[in-house]
């Protein structure tokens, strides 16, 4: 355990990338997820079709492929650069890939939430003369969000764990699992304590998130 603790700076560095990946991807996927949901229920058939196609397509593609496409396809083949340093460049590509992937799950949860809203709410809104956008942003989305706090928490936990895939070739963000692999391979610390240490690190991130969202979902639940 001492060898692991003497390398604690590497561990902390790894988890700092994990947390940054999670925060930015969570933010962007949440926004994109709401946009996709709005498109999915919009009166314009083309928008509905685009949203359905996107969600069904990306949701059924492995995350490894999505991130590989961002790394090898968009970053290398297209030659698009998002930041000056390599570390931040691959970081932003990883955020794009993770957000594009996670947004599908946010959108699916939100759509399930919309389906739980009683018909009368929307009919009342329409009878007051609210337009589609007003209806969605004032009546439907706020209520839907409150009912899907729990599922969104699960999506966030999945995202925290999925950030490890950002270590894939072509990206190679120095996040926690990659640091762990490097420590295994370089033999700078015994395998078992290293694994346990990193596992505890992830549990510190995922377990409180789960409890927090469980508490929050009870607190904001809509009583019907």
């Amino acid at each position, binding site marked *: 355990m001492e060898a692991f603790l003497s390398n604690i700076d590497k561990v902390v560095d790894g988890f700092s990338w994990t947390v940054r990946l999670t925060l930015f991807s969570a933010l962007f996927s949440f926004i994109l997820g709401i946009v996709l949901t709005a498109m999915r229920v919009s009166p314009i*058939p083309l928008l509905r079709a685009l949203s359905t196609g996107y969600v069904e397509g990306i949701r059924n*593609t492995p*995350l490894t492929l999505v991130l590989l496409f961002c790394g090898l396809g968009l970053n290398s*083949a297209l030659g698009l650069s998002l930041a000056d340093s390599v570390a931040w460049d691959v970081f932003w590509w990883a955020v794009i890939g993770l957000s594009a992937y996670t947004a599908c799950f946010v959108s699916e949860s939100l759509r399930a939430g919309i389906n739980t809203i009683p*018909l009368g709410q929307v009919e009342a809104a329409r009878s007051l003369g609210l337009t589609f956008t007003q*209806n969605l942003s004032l009546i439907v989305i706020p209520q839907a969000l409150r009912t899907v706090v729990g599922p969104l928490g699960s999506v966030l936990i999945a995202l925290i764990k999925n950030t490890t895939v950002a270590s894939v070739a072509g990206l190679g963000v120095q996040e926690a699992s990659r640091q762990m692999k490097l420590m*295994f391979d370089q033999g700078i610390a015994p395998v078992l304590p290293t694994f346990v240490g990193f596992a505890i690190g992830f*549990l510190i991130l995922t377990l409180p998130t789960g409890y927090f969202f469980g508490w929050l979902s009870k607190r904001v639940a809509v009583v019907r």
Partner: protein
Amino acid sequence: MSAQNVLFDVPGPKARARYRIYTAFTVLAAIAGLAVLYLGFNRTLGEGAPSILSSEAWAPSPTGQWTANKWLPFIDPATWTDYVIPGLQNTLTAALLASVLAIVFGLVFGIGRMSDHWWIRVPSSAVVEFFRGIPLLMLIFFTMALPIAINQLLPVFGQPPMTPGTFQVSALAAVVTGLTLYNGSVLAEVFRAGIKAVPKGQSEAAYSVGMNKTQTMWLILIPQAVTSMMPAIVAQLVVLLKDSALGYIIAFPELLRSFTLIATRHSNVIPAAIVCAIIYIIINVSLSRVAIWLERRNAQRGKQSAKVGAGPGVAPEPTPDAAVPGAVPDQGQETRNKPTEPS
């Protein structure tokens, strides 16, 4: 609430005109986005490239990804027999092995978590929460490093270290182990929720006819829980199949790895990625369809049994003939319509 056609009124002439404008904008935006991707992968975008108004920019350039040469490998049978099919076989082997093992793992620990004995319940809970809370990739890395770990631990117990190579973990074993532990833990929670959702009367009835705990669990609760949770189980198996692509990272020769090999060999990253994505989407969408079909079947079955069972007295189980249109309605038909719809 069904979202469609409730959030907005039937459009009048003004709204229809507005929708047409929005549609036009969407089409333009989509075309612009696709054009950037097309030109980008065609290597005719940015500095030193021909003007995007010239036909030169739009013709598939030999250095770009859209030229026919980059796609030809996919109509060559050798590509499929040498790369894609073996990769697909490996992916399916790993997924199938892991599915079976994960279901066993899930059953054992799901039931373990509901045990009456704390010394079974607490460790089972700890195992499930641990493997559910840490990333799958870490489990795979750790399984790969297991020989090193054992070699480091043996001296601690006063044993001599193994000679190198006596114990090795193959990439397949690492992937299957990781997938089993992670998805098994998720399935354990699914089974637990399913068993809890079986009405209490079922187990009470089982105990009252003299069944013991094991019999009640295996003969009464688990069959009903598995049936009602089948959609969730299949959905988790889709996740498992998708996650098997993580094997790529530890060089397990599965489908994604095959496609990256094709991509390196013919330097056609984009066509390879597109074909690979299509294959995964086809497999996963068909599996998801199975889940949806099971869900519908369950819903129908639940409705029937709820309605038949809710009637006073013993209503006979509807015979298969009753489903045939024009068949004589059986006794259950009347009782079926009486009770109110379960909300």
